[in-house]
């Protein structure tokens, strides 16, 4: 039995967070792909409260919620790189912006993908601008939110880049545009090219296909 297992679904950006963290820490793990339409017995048993992926199973014990999993990976495998920064204040900053992304921006991106426009567009642009400011402040001239290396906040936001690109295509304009948010634009390229991300980040084309299939399926089930 593999010591570390990860239950996931390939299009899911939250699953990608756990995978990137494991790759960064060079942890060997068995990846178990859940069926797109369903939930396995193992998933329901391991996450009875939320019944959602990702679930990390380490030595038989399950861990749920992507950001909690990423912090666990950082604390259980102490080898470099450290995913959270050294100072308590910087850690609070990373956690604050991660919560901002998950609570505000991510649901907004979903609404935009589902066709909402107008005020939602403005909110998204404002949100991206705030992230640019956070990036400039936290990176201190280096390549990532975490500094020289990918960290907690890079993982939180970066793993959503595929879906951000899908959203941009559906909206017909770029949210992360070099002219408007040069820091983030450069960061996005660096993140996707990173060895811990490349190869496991799903292609935007495939995410687009999955999204369109899901939309068709939703329309059919409403009839």
């Amino acid at each position, binding site marked *: 039995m593999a010591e570390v297992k990860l239950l996931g679904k390939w299009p899911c950006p939250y699953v990608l967070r756990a995978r990137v963290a494991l790759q960064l820490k060079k942890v060997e793990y068995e990846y178990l792909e859940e069926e797109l339409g369903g939930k396995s017995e193992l998933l329901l048993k391991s996450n009875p*409260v939320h019944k959602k992926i990702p679930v990390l199973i*380490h030595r038989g*014990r399950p*861990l749920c919620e992507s950001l*909690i999993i990423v*912090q666990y990976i950082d604390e*259980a495998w102490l080898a470099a790189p450290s995913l959270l920064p050294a100072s*308590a*204040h910087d850690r609070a900053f990373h956690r604050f912006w991660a919560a901002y992304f998950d609570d505000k921006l991510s649901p907004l991106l979903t609404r935009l993908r589902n066709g909402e426009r107008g005020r939602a567009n403005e909110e998204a642009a404002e949100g991206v601008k705030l992230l640019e400011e956070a990036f400039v402040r936290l990176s201190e001239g280096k390549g990532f939110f975490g500094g020289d290396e990918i960290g907690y906040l890079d993982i939180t936001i970066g793993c959503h880049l595929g879906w951000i690109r899908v959203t941009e295509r559906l909206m017909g304009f770029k949210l992360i545009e070099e002219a408007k948010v040069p820091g983030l634009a450069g960061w996005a390229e660096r993140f996707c090219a990173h060895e811990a991300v490349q190869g496991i980040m799903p292609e935007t084309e495939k995410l687009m296909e999955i999204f369109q299939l899901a939309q068709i399926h939703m329309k059919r089930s409403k009839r």
Partner: protein
Amino acid sequence: MPQTASLHLTNRLHIHIVLESESERERERGARMAEAVVLLDVWVSPFGQRCRIALAEKGVAYEYKEEDLANKSPLLLQANPVHKKIPVLIHDGKPVCESLVIVQYIDEVWSDGAPILPADPYARAQARFWGDFVDKKIYDCGIRLWKLKGEAHQEAKKEFIEILKVLEAELGDRKYFGGDAFGYVDIALVPFFAWFYTYETCGGFSVEAEAPKLVAWGKRCMERESVSQTLYDPLKVYEFVCSLKKKYGIE
């Protein structure tokens, strides 16, 4: 606060003077530290109360500033420009926002006090999971209990009771959520103990009937000074919610 003592064994009088100035210096240090820690908050906020309890558990002196949410102070707007919400902890001029982020910050900075999060990574992950569960579920479902009517109210009631039962099952027969030691999940949840009366009155159910172990846990937490000095009387919380209902024109 760690004691620093330099012993001058040659002269007992000298030792006395050294220790006296040491405690004077500590008083000064304490006063400076109290100025260096400011909490922007609102009296009834369960999120603010999490921070107050954590600070009290660690014995940290701080300045409490009551905010008027209808008229937010320039300090609040500057310290939390993104959300403009309380609580905000300002430590040495630097703001920290989001209650559970603040609680973790307090735990990490004042690490010589009793730990709020356990040392073991798996136990920490479990604590964070349940803190996150409380965050995602209780407050929003609770609001629906006093804001909504009819079928939506019934749904909220069903959901809220389910949330209580999940927490009850997780607590089991333990003294606190973390086991023998009062910790992160207890701090995340206990401010809502003062809201149980409001929830059950607006919801039309009894928290004790649905989750007796949870109520017993709440009472145990109230035996801790950090909790009893922070939580308000449940009737006062209910009065506050009634005044909100009036304000929003809810029957």
